[in-house]
């Protein structure tokens, strides 16, 4: 099967084509995988150690990848993952052209997004105003939680459509903080 991949490492994004090739007789067990990345064929052996933790042998080298849901992406985007390999963290979007009816990337086609409180806390400072344009990673507000002040940043660029909270407000986990258009 052929997949389109969007990889983000820091601020650098790149597109890739991955094909997982059909199993063939020479492959010793179900965990042996032959794949082609940008048309280059390679073999890997994959063990799922625990849910989301993969031990991958590739070209004789041993890697471990930890796949989780990224912070800052709506729960609707089922195909975006945060992947940690060694010390590096990537955001990877996996798209199967056969399955996806509408075109384009989920990260780019989001529409308005509600930024919600990841945990209970108190709003210490609001760093933006309604109608302000913000860039990805720009600070939106400062929240005090777990005895520390933490800055919530924009998961993507856009316009601040609505701010639901004010400085000094206590918020519950999941409370709406602002809407990004």
């Amino acid at each position: 099967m052929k997949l389109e991949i969007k990889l983000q490492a820091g601020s650098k994004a790149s597109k890739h084509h991955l094909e997982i090739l059909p199993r063939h007789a020479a492959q010793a067990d179900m965990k042996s995988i032959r794949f082609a990345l940008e048309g280059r064929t390679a073999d890997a052996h994959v063990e799922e150690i625990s849910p989301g933790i993969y031990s991958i042998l590739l070209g004789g080298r041993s890697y471990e990848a930890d796949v989780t849901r990224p912070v800052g992406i709506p729960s609707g985007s089922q195909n975006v993952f945060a992947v940690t390999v060694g010390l590096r963290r990537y955001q990877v979007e996996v798209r199967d052209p056969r399955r996806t009816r509408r075109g384009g990337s989920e990260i780019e086609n989001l529409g308005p997004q509600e930024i919600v409180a990841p945990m209970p806390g108190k709003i210490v400072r609001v760093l933006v105003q309604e109608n302000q344009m913000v860039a990805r990673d720009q600070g939106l507000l400062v929240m005090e939680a777990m005895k520390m002040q933490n800055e919530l940043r924009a998961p993507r660029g856009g316009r601040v459509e609505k701010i639901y909270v004010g400085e000094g407000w206590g918020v519950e986990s999941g409370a709406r903080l602002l809407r990004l258009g």
Partner: protein
Amino acid sequence: MFSKILIANRGEIAVRVMRACREMGIRTVAVYSDVDRRSLHVRYADEAYGIGPAPSTESYLRIDRILDAAQRSGAEAIHPGYGFLAENPEFARACDAAGITFIGPPVEAMELMGSKTASRRAVIQAGLPVVPGTDHNLESFEEVARLAAEMGYPVMLKASSGGGGKGLRLVTAPSELESAYRTARSEAQNAFNDPSVYLEKYLARPRHVEIQILGDRHGNLIHLGERECSLQRRHQKVMEECPSPVLDEDLRQRMGETAVHIGKLAGYWNAGTVEFLLDLDRHFYFLEMNTRLQVEHPVTELVVGIDLVKEQFRVAAGERLRWRQEDVHLRGAALECRVYAEDPANNFFPSPGLISRLQVPAGPGIRRDSGVYEGWRIPLEYDPLISKVAVWGTDRKEAIARMSRALAEYEIVGVQTNVPFFRRLLEHEDFLAGRLDTGFIDRVLAAGLMGEEGHSEDDERVAILAAALHAQRQQGSPSPPAATNNSWKTAGRQSLLHHWPRGLTRTPR
């Protein structure tokens, strides 16, 4: 010696104090808030008493409830750990009144050293060096502005009752002063119920070097060398080492003698720490004194070979110190990393949650002080410290290599941690060379330590493959690798689907 001690704290430090008790045959009493019933310190203790709801003001800071637990259990002494009531003279006095020994310094020493301005005054009067600044609380913005202008920018605004980086503001220009003054006062009011602030000159690229002291009730007071704590993020120490890469025997002796002198000014006994800033010309200045056990005490224990908690017990029980100054020697080097449940890739945002899997470092030279276990949920209500990993090596180089090895072995699944951040830091050229100052971490973070430098094509391939396989498994795709009929795996996948870590955003309905 005491036969039963109550530990008025939680988490790793409560467990650490109980370990000393166990080795000395002392019975242990834990206290816990409603959300800590399943915490490690409660499971570890011989006895445990609930002291109220989750907010610390209703539990770990409730002197009456803690003393009640002490009396019900028959504990003869209370160890306060660090934080919470550890530097609260009122608590020490209440223990006295209840006939229970407070394992700490005399109340008068706590009071003198607890006030940053009073302790500065005492140290100045003794002719010892302090960071240039004011020695009294500043009452008005006009006074602050005038003194800051006299002193010259940059300046630091500090809370008089401060600690832990709260109520602390660096001001680089007069235009920033008014808002800094307001926020420092309001933070100080919120954190310490005392809005008073004072000013200090900001030194360029200072190191934070502190001296461990230890004294008994018979007038003996010695120092146990230094700790270098220059690696700080937002004024909070994150990694400490002993010895400091820049101290020589002469400077160590001078700083040690000054620390002992300051301890004597306060009539100090118990373990304590005198903090100094060290400037580029190796001049040192008194910063403040902490009248308790420090978070980072393990690095001193590893290098000096003295168990500070046991010595605290002995001193509190009236015993004499078992060491003279000339008996204290530093051997090898130690490092400590404070492992927090926070996400370095997301601006160090706290990441509480269930620790679904935990594999801990082991092998030569490793010490781990932890308050967690696999299957435990890190509560939202407290500081998200998971553990402190400390290592010992014959020299700094071996200690660094050992720490890198230990952190690579450390596997904490279910929450994000700052371990990847430490692993990067341990490779940083300036860190390896020992070129440290209190602004070091902020600078390397600003330069993108957690960012994109050092790209690896292999890691990218692995990330792409892992994500693609993971996506397939979730969708139950029949493509290879075909799902095996393994019910454990199926259950694992289902639990994953039902327990997505909560994201920061969601789409509106």
